[in-house]
């Protein structure tokens, strides 16, 4: 598909695009807090702190919408850098099994007695994500290259393994523990405390900002490991840093919302068609775009069958599954 875009990245284009996407995200947040089974009057909600509108807006909708934004930002950023690092437009934290690895570690922590909203779970999820991404990479890599199809196959195996480990953990756990784990993994966004949203936001902000440092190196890696090394990139260091930071983001996302599929795949891919492949722009764009995307997906999940509520993971999977198949067809035909 022909796409017209500028020949190279300039400060003005970077700033302009980021500002535009930030504005789009702000509008999405505003629209999403007003959407829901019960209509909310913004003027009343802001004017009267004792009104029901205020109660719904500030304590029910806003933390949930913010959580959706934080999780979407994390998944968008992780997808963007993993696609860049692995040179594979089909790479995604879920397809690679990274989210599943995080979920396994988180589930074990919960069954072992950790409070699902404590800080122990995010760290376990982070460790699980890091272990899985390192494993997938080690298995799929031969002769200094990672085969795009091998990495997806290893991801499939990791996902299946993780699913059976979670079932095993659940079989060994008590009924209530198992319920908690299942609910957590299903990929649901629910109303959480501002503290939890804040902690997740902190992880995601720090992780994303640190990743921007590696954006230029990721561009060079698109020309191969040797090509990047010949331009002065310490390839091993960049790879380690990107794996650790992407795992931090995925661990944070999974620990507050379970497994939400395809966000990390769709968002960077669509944005690449618009803003180009340069990670210095694509990464911040994927952070903002991922946040906006999940905010809207969650709004759809809350309103489509209102008053019943869909898990947001259902919405993203219904959108992402067909999209992935379309991308796979393109890649099999040798297009990009």
């Amino acid at each position: 598909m022909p796409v017209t875009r500028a020949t190279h990245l300039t400060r003005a284009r970077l700033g302009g695009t980021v500002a535009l996407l930030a504005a789009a995200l702000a509008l999405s947040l505003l629209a999403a807090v007003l959407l829901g089974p019960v209509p909310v009057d913004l003027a009343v909600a802001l004017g009267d702190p004792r009104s029901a509108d205020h109660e719904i807006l500030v304590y029910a909708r806003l933390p949930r919408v913010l959580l959706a934004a934080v999780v979407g930002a994390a998944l968008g950023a992780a997808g963007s850098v993993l696609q860049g690092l692995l040179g594979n437009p089909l790479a995604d934290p879920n397809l690679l099994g990274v989210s599943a690895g995080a979920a396994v570690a988180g589930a074990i922590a919960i069954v072992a007695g950790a409070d699902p909203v404590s800080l122990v779970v995010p760290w376990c999820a982070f460790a699980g994500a890091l272990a899985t991404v390192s494993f997938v990479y080690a298995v799929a890599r031969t002769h200094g290259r990672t085969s795009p199809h091998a990495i997806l196959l290893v991801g499939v195996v990791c996902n299946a393994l993780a699913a059976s480990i979670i079932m095993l953990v659940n079989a060994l756990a008590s009924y209530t523990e198992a319920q908690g784990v299942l609910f957590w993994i299903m990929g649901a966004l629910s109303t959480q405390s501002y503290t939890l949203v804040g902690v997740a936001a902190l992880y995601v902000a720090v992780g994303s900002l640190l990743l921007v440092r590696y954006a230029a190196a990721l561009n060079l890696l698109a020309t191969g490991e040797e090509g990047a090394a010949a331009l002065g990139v310490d390839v091993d260091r960049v790879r380690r840093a990107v794996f650790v930071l992407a795992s931090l983001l995925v661990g944070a996302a999974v620990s507050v919302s379970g497994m939400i599929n395809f966000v990390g795949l769709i968002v960077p891919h669509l944005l690449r068609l618009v803003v180009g492949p340069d990670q210095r722009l694509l990464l911040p764009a994927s952070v903002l775009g991922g946040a906006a995307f999940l905010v809207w997906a969650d709004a759809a999940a809350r309103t489509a069958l209102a008053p019943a509520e869909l898990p947001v993971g259902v919405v993203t999977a219904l959108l992402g599954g067909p999209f992935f198949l379309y991308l796979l067809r393109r890649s099999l035909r040798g297009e990009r």
Partner: protein
Amino acid sequence: MSARLAADAVTFAFGERTVVADVDLALAPGELVAVLGPNGSGKSTLLRLLAGLAVPRAGAVRLDGRDLRTLDRRTVARRLALVPQDPRVDYPFTALEVTLMGRAPHQRGLGLPSPRDLAIAEQALRCVDAASLAARPLDRLSGGERQRVFLARALAQQPEVLLLDEPVTHLDVRHQLDVHALLCRLCRERQLACVTVVHDLNLALSYCDRALVLSAGRVAAQGPPAVALDAACVAAVFGVQMLTVAHPQTGAPVLVAAENAADPFARPGGA
């Protein structure tokens, strides 16, 4: 003249298989050296050793007297550029974006291009006759066009040493001659030290200052191209009968294939 880049008895092996054995090469500023040899004779590995991308099992490669292993990659990249054999890019970066990547070792932080970076990159694209490709995504270019863009990227690095792995393989005849003329000019004008892997013996004869012929990882001959690439050496290394004739216009030596040179049954000692 002292050597800018020097390989002292470098040896490299993949496991048990030795691919480069005991190669000496001293490259002076302004010198253009051709590396030749049959497929699998270790040419690309030698280039990777010279670039510091492979670490020699024995011997050392020195840049202005300093062992490459003691220099960090960025320092090396500011002074030494490599054009890979089969350049590819995973995502649709434009030719200008790829060329600007050559500025990376000179940049800090995000590495957004300064006006100077942009001027250098555009100049480099003009050098390789690719200015008109600047806005085109690389995956839409032909193999030869991609190769020229990667040469532009190496030029944008403003290196003192330029290493090229078969830079003209995918090029049409005009661009083959253009690239070699450009390399000659850069060596003369900017005192660039240049090593290029070529398959075309006559390109080496007419454009290079020196030829290094590899056979099974060892130096079979090294010296002025007309001396190193005599018919006897070509027969011994490539197993092909060739004749040295005089160029009708310049009188310079040119290699032409002998009758039946490509017939394995006609080769001396052939099957």
